[in-house]
C-alpha cells in the first residue's frame, strides 16, 4: 500500500489510484469537475492542480517545482509529496472558477441541482466574489435531448463526463461535444436522442445543473430530501440505490456506490421504475370472501382466520394439500417467516418458489454493467430459504399443475410484482383451490377466486434483505410509510409466525442467521466520501 504525503500528512492509499482520489478518500474536498473514478481521465477542468515535488535536474534532489500538476492525472507513488493547501493552488482554483463563471449563470434559486452542485460549492468556497467580465454572457439554449433528460446548456462546464459515460459505460455514444472553444456545446445527433438503458446516470454525473431529469424538474429542493439506503427490486442484479424521499413520498432514485454490483450507476428501470408504488389501484385493505363478493375485514381478524383454515386443510395428512407460494419479491426474512408459519401448521405443506418473471435476455454493457432478464430481486434468497426448510417443494408451474388437478386444498400465494403477472393458466388453476389467500399489491385475475385478499407493501415501504443473482446478500431500509391501511408484509408475517411487537428485519435476520449463516452475511458496500465522485 503506497504512502504519500498530502499537505504534510502521510496518507496510505490504494495502489494505482490518482492523487486526487487518494486525497478525496482521505477526506479532503479537492475541487474537480472532469474527474470521475468510473470514467477515463481527461484532465481538462484544471481545477484539481496541485504542487508536487520533483527531482531537480541538476542536483537530483526532490524539490517543489513552480509548475502545477493535475492531481487526477498523476498516479500515486510511494513516498511522493504533494500539497493542495497553498496559496498558489488556491489562486489557481480562484482563477479557474472565474473563467467558469464568465458565462455560467449563478441561478441557484431556480436550478434543480442547487444543494448538490459543485459549481455552487466551489464558488462559495474559493471562487471570486464578482465577475470582471462586463460583456454579456452567452445565452446558450435549453435542449430536450431525450425522453427523460433536459440539457440547460448555459450551465454546462464542458467537463465531458456525460459524453464519456455514453461512450465508455453505455457504449452508445449519443452525446458529443459540438463546436469549438467557448462555443462548445453538448448535443445529440439529429434524430438520435439520448435514450439508452442507462441514460439517467448522466444527470447524476453532471457536476452542475446542466443535465436535468424531466421527472424531477422543479419538484423538490434537494436539501429537503431524506435518503434511504435501498436495493432496487427491478431485476435480480440487486443494484444498490438511494431512495430520496420526504413527507410527500418518493421523489427520485439515485445510484448508491457498490463496488461489487453496479459501481456508480443504475439502470433506467431501477431509476424510473418506482412509480407503480403510487398507482391508484393499489390494494389498501384486507378482504375476505363473503358469499360471492370480497368484503373488508380487520387486520386483527386475519391471523386467526388463516390459521384455522390452513389447520383445517392440513388435518389428517399433515398438510400435504397445503401450499405456500414464496414470491421472489419477498425479502429473505419475510420468506422465512411465511415458510415457518406454514410449516408450523402443516409440516407436510409444499413450499413453492413463486413466479419468476423473465423479460428478454441479460444485457451486458462495455465495462461490465449488467441488466438482468430476471425481473425479481430475490430468487436466490427464496431458494436458500427453501433449501433450509426442505420437505415438499415445487416450482410455480408444478404448483399450478397440482392446483388444476384439485390437489391443493389451501394455498397462501404471495406476489408483489410491479407488473401484471397472473395469466389465464394461473387463474384457471387457482380457481380450483378451496382456500386461497392472495397477498399482492394490485388487483388481478385471482380476485374472483381468492378467499382472502391481503394488501402487500412495496419494497420501499419495507425493510429486509435480497440475495442477488450472484448470491450477494444486501439489506434495504424502509424509505416511506406504507400506503394507508396496508401492513408491511414483514410485520404481518411476523405476527402470523407468532411474533409480538414490531417487526425489525435485523432481529429476525439474527435468528435466521443462526440456522442459515448465508442469510445473515449481509454485504455492505464501501461508503464513498461525500465528494469522491
Amino acid at each position, binding site marked *: 500500500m503506497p504512502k504519500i504525503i498530502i499537505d504534510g500528512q502521510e496518507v496510505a492509499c490504494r495502489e494505482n489510484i490518482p492523487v486526487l482520489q487518494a486525497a478525496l478518500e482521505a477526506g479532503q474536498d479537492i475541487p474537480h469537475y472532469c474527474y470521475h473514478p468510473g470514467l477515463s481521465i481527461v484532465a481538462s*477542468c484544471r481545477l484539481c492542480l496541485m504542487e508536487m515535488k520533483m527531482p531537480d535536474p541538476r542536483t537530483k534532489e526532490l524539490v517543489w517545482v*513552480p509548475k502545477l500538476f493535475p492531481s487526477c492525472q498523476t498516479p500515486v507513488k510511494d513516498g511522493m509529496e504533494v500539497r493542495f493547501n497553498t496559496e*498558489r493552488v488556491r489562486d489557481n482554483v480562484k482563477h479557474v472558477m472565474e473563467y467558469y463563471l*464568465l458565462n455560467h449563470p449563478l441561478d441557484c434559486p431556480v436550478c434543480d441541482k442547487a444543494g448538490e452542485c459543485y459549481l455552487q460549492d466551489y464558488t462559495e468556497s474559493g471562487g*471570486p466574489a464578482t465577475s470582471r467580465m462586463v460583456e454579456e454572457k452567452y445565452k446558450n439554449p435549453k435542449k430536450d435531448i431525450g425522453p427523460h433528460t433536459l440539457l440547460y446548456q448555459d450551465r454546462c*462546464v464542458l467537463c465531458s463526463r456525460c459524453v464519456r459515460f455514453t461512450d465508455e459505460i453505455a457504449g452508445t455514444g449519443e452525446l458529443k461535444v459540438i463546436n*469549438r*472553444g467557448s462555443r462548445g456545446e453538448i448535443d445529440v445527433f439529429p434524430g438520435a436522442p439520448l435514450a439508452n438503458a442507462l441514460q439517467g446516470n448522466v444527470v447524476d454525473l453532471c457536476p452542475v445543473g446542466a443535465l436535468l431529469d424531466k421527472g424531477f424538474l422543479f419538484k423538490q429542493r434537494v436539501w429537503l430530501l431524506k435518503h434511504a439506503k435501498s436495493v432496487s427490486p427491478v431485476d435480480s442484479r440487486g443494484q444498490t440505490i438511494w431512495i430520496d424521499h420526504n413527507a410527500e413520498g418518493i421523489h427520485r432514485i439515485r445510484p448508491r456506490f457498490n463496488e461489487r454490483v453496479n459501481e456508480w450507476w443504475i439502470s433506467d428501470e431501477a431509476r424510473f421504475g418506482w412509480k407503480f408504488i403510487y398507482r391508484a389501484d393499489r390494494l389498501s385493505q384486507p378482504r375476505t370472501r363473503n358469499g360471492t363478493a370480497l368484503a373488508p375485514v380487520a387486520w386483527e381478524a386475519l391471523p386467526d382466520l388463516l390459521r384455522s383454515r390452513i389447520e383445517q386443510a392440513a388435518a389428517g395428512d399433515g398438510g400435504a394439500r397445503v401450499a405456500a407460494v414464496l414470491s421472489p419479491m419477498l425479502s429473505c426474512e419475510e420468506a422465512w417467516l411465511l415458510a415457518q408459519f406454514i410449516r408450523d401448521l402443516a409440516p407436510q405443506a409444499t413450499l413453492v418458489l413463486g413466479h419468476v418473471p423473465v423479460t428478454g435476455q441479460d444485457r451486458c454493457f462495455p465495462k461490465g454493467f449488467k441488466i438482468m432478464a430476471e425481473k425479481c430481486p430475490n430468487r436466490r434468497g427464496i431458494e436458500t430459504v427453501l433449501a433450509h426448510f426442505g420437505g415438499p417443494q415445487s416450482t410455480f408451474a408444478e404448483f399450478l399443475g397440482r392446483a388444476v388437478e384439485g390437489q391443493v386444498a389451501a394455498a397462501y400465494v404471495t406476489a408483489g410484482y410491479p407488473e401484471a403477472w397472473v395469466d389465464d393458466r394461473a387463474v384457471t388453476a387457482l380457481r380450483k383451490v378451496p382456500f386461497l389467500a392472495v397477498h399482492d399489491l394490485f388487483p388481478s385475475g385471482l380476485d374472483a377466486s381468492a378467499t382472502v385478499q391481503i394488501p402487500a407493501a412495496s419494497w420501499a415501504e419495507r425493510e429486509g434483505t435480497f440475495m442477488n443473482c450472484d448470491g450477494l446478500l444486501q439489506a434495504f431500509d424502509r424509505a416511506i410509510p406504507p400506503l394507508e391501511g396496508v401492513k408491511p408484509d414483514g410485520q404481518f408475517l411476523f405476527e402470523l409466525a407468532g411474533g409480538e411487537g414490531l417487526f425489525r428485519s435485523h432481529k429476525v435476520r439474527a435468528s435466521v442467521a443462526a440456522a442459515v449463516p448465508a442469510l445473515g452475511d449481509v454485504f455492505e458496500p464501501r461508503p464513498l466520501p461525500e465528494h469522491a465522485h
Partner: protein
Amino acid sequence: MAFEPVLMRHYRVPNSTSLQVYQQAGGYTGAAKALQMTADELVELVKKANLRGRGGAGFPAGVKWTFLPKDRKVTYLCINADESEPPTFCNRITIETDPHMLLEGILIAGYATRTTVAYIYMRGEFTEQFHILQKALDEAYAAGYFGQNILGSGYNLECYIHRGAGAYVCGEETGLIESLEGKRGWPRIKPPFPAVEGAFRQPTVVNNVETLACLPHILTRGVDWWLSIGTENSKGPKMYCVSGPVNRPGCYEAPLGVSVRELIYGQDFGQGMRGGRKVKAVFPGGLSMGVIRGDIFPRHPEAGQVELARDYDELDCRLDFDDVRRYDLLGLGTAALVVVNEDTDMRDVLRNVARFYSHESCGQCTQCREGTAWMQRIAERIRAGAGRVLDLDLIEEITRNMGMMPGMSICGLPDGAAWPLRTLVQKFRREFEAHIAAQAPDAAAKYIQRINPAAYDLPILQGRAVAPTGGTFYHPEKYAGAAH
C-alpha cells in the same frame, strides 16, 4: 563561403515535382546512404548534427527518436503537414516544389526509427498540394522507394497521406494523432507521450515536414557541412516566410540566426517596406511566439522620455532558437514573419490575434476555452473605441492565468495565445492608452451598458484601477521561494 540554399533549391525549377528532376539533382542518394547504415548509427548521426525540430518547439529530432521504447513491435511516423499557424506557408512551398525531398526525408526517418507505416497528416485546405504529393508518392512507390524491400535493403515502409478537416489544434502532435485516428481533434493528456503511446496506441514519432526535408541534405553533404551553418545552438538552414507590407513578401531560405532586419530589408529577402513606410511591429515566429517592436520606435531614446528597458527597436533579433528569447518571445516557432507597418492600428492587430485563438481553441481546458474568448471580447471592445486602461491590466492578467508558465494545460495553445497578446499589450501599451485617452470620457460605460444592460451596477472604470481588481495569479516575487 556564400550560403547555398538547399531546402528551396528547386523553387522555380521547371517540373521540380517530378522524380526525374529530383533524381537528376542527386535525389534519394541520401536515403540510399542511410539504408546502408544501421538505424542506431543514423540516429546518432542526426543527434550529432543537432537537427532541431522545425515545427515550433525546436526539440532535437534525434533525441526525440531515442524516446521510442527499445522493445517496440510497431512504430508509426506521423508527418505534420498541417501548417495552420497564421503566417506560415513554408511546408506548402516544400510540398509544392520539392515533394520528393520530403518523401526522402520520410524514408530516412522511417528507417532510423524502424517505422513500418508513415502517415502524412496534411491540412485539409491543401487541395492542390495533396495531389502533387500523392503523385510524387505514387512515383516513389513505383521506383521502389516505398513499399517492400526498399532498394534491396530488406526494409519495408508504407506511406499514406491523411487529410485533416482543418483545425489549428490538429497541428499539435497529440491533436494530430487523435484526428488521424478519426476522432475529434482534441489534444491528449501527456503522459503517455506519443513516443510510448501515440497513434493507435503504438509508439509514434511526430515530425514536421521541414525537419524531415533537412535529412537528405545532412546525409548527402555530411554533418560538418550542416554544423557550419547557423549559430551556436541552432544549426542548419531554415525556411523563413515573410508576409505583410514588404516589397517582396515570400518564403526565403537562410541560415538559422538571420536577423529580422535582414529579412525585411535585405536585397535577397524582403527588399524593404512597401512605400517606404516604417516597421511598427513584427511577429517573427508565427503569431503565437509574440511580437517585437519595429523601427518606428527610437533606437536611441532620450532619457526620461521613454522606458529604456522596452522602447527600442528590436529588429536586430536573430532568428534562431536562443536569441529570440532575449526579446520576450516564446521561441522561434515556425519562423514566419508578419510585418506590421506604421499605418496599422495595433487595436486591429490585438483583435485579430485574439479572435484567431478564440476561434481555434479546442475547448478542453477551461483557461484556454474561456480565457481566449474573454480576451477576444475585450479586444473587440477596445477596437470599438470603448477600451479602459483597466482592460490592458486585465488582458495581461488573463494571459498570466491561462498558463502561469508554459505547459500548464493539455497542449500549448493557451501559451501560444497568451504570449502574443501579452507582448502586444506590454510592448504597445502606450499606443493603447493613447487610443483610450482619445475616446469620449464615457465611451466604455456607454458601450458596456449597450451590449450588457445588466452591467449597470458594475464598476466601469475608464482609467487604471485604483484598487486590485480581484487578485492576480502571477506574482513572480510571490512565488519566487518555491522555484528551484
